[in-house]
């Protein structure tokens, strides 16, 4: 009898991480800047997890992910500032629109490797252009200001510390969802597809359907993250949803470790901190990313998770930690 996915999820490491992440804003309460940083990291962690699902587990190079992030942010911003939609409705609409965008893009799953990567890259460019050019709808390069703080159950979530718990809940829900997916037949199909697509097809797995599902699920996640970002900052503009963000997200997955969920979270935190810290260096800060991408791909393609896994595999494992969890 296979162990249920929930039993697998509640490992001591996961439980400790959940408690620690829930306690973080209390520990950092003294500095509003740290809380702001923490919230930003949480939004990007959502995106990095979503991209980990597509790129890491699916082996599908989605290079336009930030565009879908933008679809969510713009939908939420437009509906709440111009049509007075309440937050929950705008949030759901953001996810729906992002999924609709993925449906429009979905015919490209027929394409193989390089052509697929090219198509996603170009799709991202088109979305970025739309955000910049379709001024009547998106306000062009100026973007949106004054996006209201969300109101939930009659309470306005204004305090960044409270907002963190909203993000935390979303992130945890997403993590559990992806964990669940990976420990289901779908996860097995993903693994088979990654290893050998042709063999996978001949075994009767509908690869096209698996890929479309991946795109739709990850886009819904990006849409949700976009909506949460818009309502958090109250301000959005096109550069946040362009190629540079797609690259930053790619970095998060690669640095954290391809096919590692905790890796994506760590990657998101590290990259956001690097972006914040190097902004003092001015306009050349991005070169750090370029060099890091090249070096990681050349010397440590498994990322930080691979490094950590290599170290812990050598250490003796205490009995009370139970058997090592296996992710497909």
């Amino acid at each position, binding site marked *: 009898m296979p162990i249920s996915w929930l039993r697998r999820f509640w490992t001591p490491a996961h439980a400790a991480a959940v408690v620690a992440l829930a306690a973080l804003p209390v520990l950092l309460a003294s500095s509003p800047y740290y809380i702001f940083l923490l919230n930003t990291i949480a939004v990007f962690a959502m995106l990095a997890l979503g991209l980990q699902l597509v790129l890491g587990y699916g*082996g599908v*190079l989605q290079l336009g992910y930030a565009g879908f992030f933008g679809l969510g942010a713009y939908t939420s911003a437009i509906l709440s500032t111009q049509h007075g939609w309440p937050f929950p409705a705008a949030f759901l609409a953001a996810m729906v629109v992002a999924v609709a965008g993925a449906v429009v893009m979905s*015919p*490209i799953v*027929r*394409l*193989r*490797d*390089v*052509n697929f*990567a*090219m*198509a996603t*890259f*170009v*799709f991202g*460019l*088109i979305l970025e*252009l*739309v955000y910049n*050019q379709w001024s009547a709808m998106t306000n062009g390069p100026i973007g949106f200001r004054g996006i209201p703080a969300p109101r939930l159950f009659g309470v306005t979530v204004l305090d960044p510390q409270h907002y963190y718990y909203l993000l935390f809940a979303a992130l945890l829900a997403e993590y559990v969802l992806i964990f669940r997916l990976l420990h289901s037949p779908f996860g097995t199909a993903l693994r088979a597809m990654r290893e050998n697509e042709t063999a996978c097809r001949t075994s009767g797995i509908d690869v096209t359907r698996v890929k479309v599902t991946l795109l739709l699920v990850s886009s819904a996640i990006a849409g949700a993250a976009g909506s949460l970002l818009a309502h958090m900052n109250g301000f959005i503009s096109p550069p946040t949803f362009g190629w540079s963000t797609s*690259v930053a997200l*790619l970095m998060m997955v*690669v640095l954290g470790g391809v096919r590692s969920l905790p890796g994506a979270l760590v990657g998101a935190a590290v990259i956001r901190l690097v972006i914040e810290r190097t902004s003092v260096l001015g*306009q*050349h800060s*991005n*070169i750090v*990313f*370029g*060099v*890091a*991408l*090249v070096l990681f*791909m*050349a010397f440590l*393609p498994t990322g930080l998770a691979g490094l950590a896994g290599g170290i812990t595999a050598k250490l003796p494992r205490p009995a009370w930690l139970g058997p090592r969890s296996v992710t497909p």
Partner: protein
Amino acid sequence: MSELLGLLVFGLAIGSIYSLVAIGFSMIYRATGLLHFAHPDLMMIGGMIGYTLATRTAMPMPLLFVCSGLAVAALSWLIDRFGFRPMRRQGALLNLIIATIGWSIILVNVALFVWGTAPLSYPEPYLPKGRTIAGIVIVPQNLAMLAVGLASMVALQLFFARTVTGQALRATAENPVAAQLMGIRVERMMSLTFLLSGFLAGGAGVLVASIVYANFDLGLIGVKSFAAAVLGGFGQVGGAMVGGLVLGLVETIGAFYVSSAYKDIIAYTLLILILLGRPQGLLGSARSRPD
């Protein structure tokens, strides 16, 4: 009518730039399977080097084309030799593609560091000037660009068809393993591919920077050469040439008659439609590329 003629010339001139970059892009893809995201940025570096040479030495345009091309060829070779070749042995294509994105970021930031953020205009003698001949505005620069572009393409075709090295290159692109068994030094051919494509990108950079401006984000124009390569059936040199010219025309005419704000969107949408409808490209036969 004269308006349309001007548009045609301009479209073809821009298109020949796309072609030059797209050819290199296709050659690299054919030889190594790599989607080289830093290739448009090599074109940008070419435009920048051209600017520096033009302001310091005032050398004539053809010489500028060659010098800048050589410099970028060397750079392209270095990136392959020390960036990609060690990774090729590991054989993870996805990782290599991600590494090219890293190189793209590095090149852009090096350009920012060396040349600054402001768009740089080439000195006066290099700038395009319109002349009216019999009521038609002719920009000699555009004609020259078209000529240089076409001449490079013809030279390339001859090189691929008539020389032993050219045939070895084609064989390597067709099937690296078989080529190696036939005694072709595959790694050397790949180096040559990067050199040649770097040269074309560097030259194209000078052409485009002289009519627009030289700036770190010039690579964005080069990105459209991806579209040209796809249009031509990804990986076919002849197709990339035609693809570039077609894209230049469609985009220029589309910008004039439809909307200039949306001209990039037109080009990109076309690219996706072509990928979906005719992955073998405009010229390719349906059987030439199974995917």
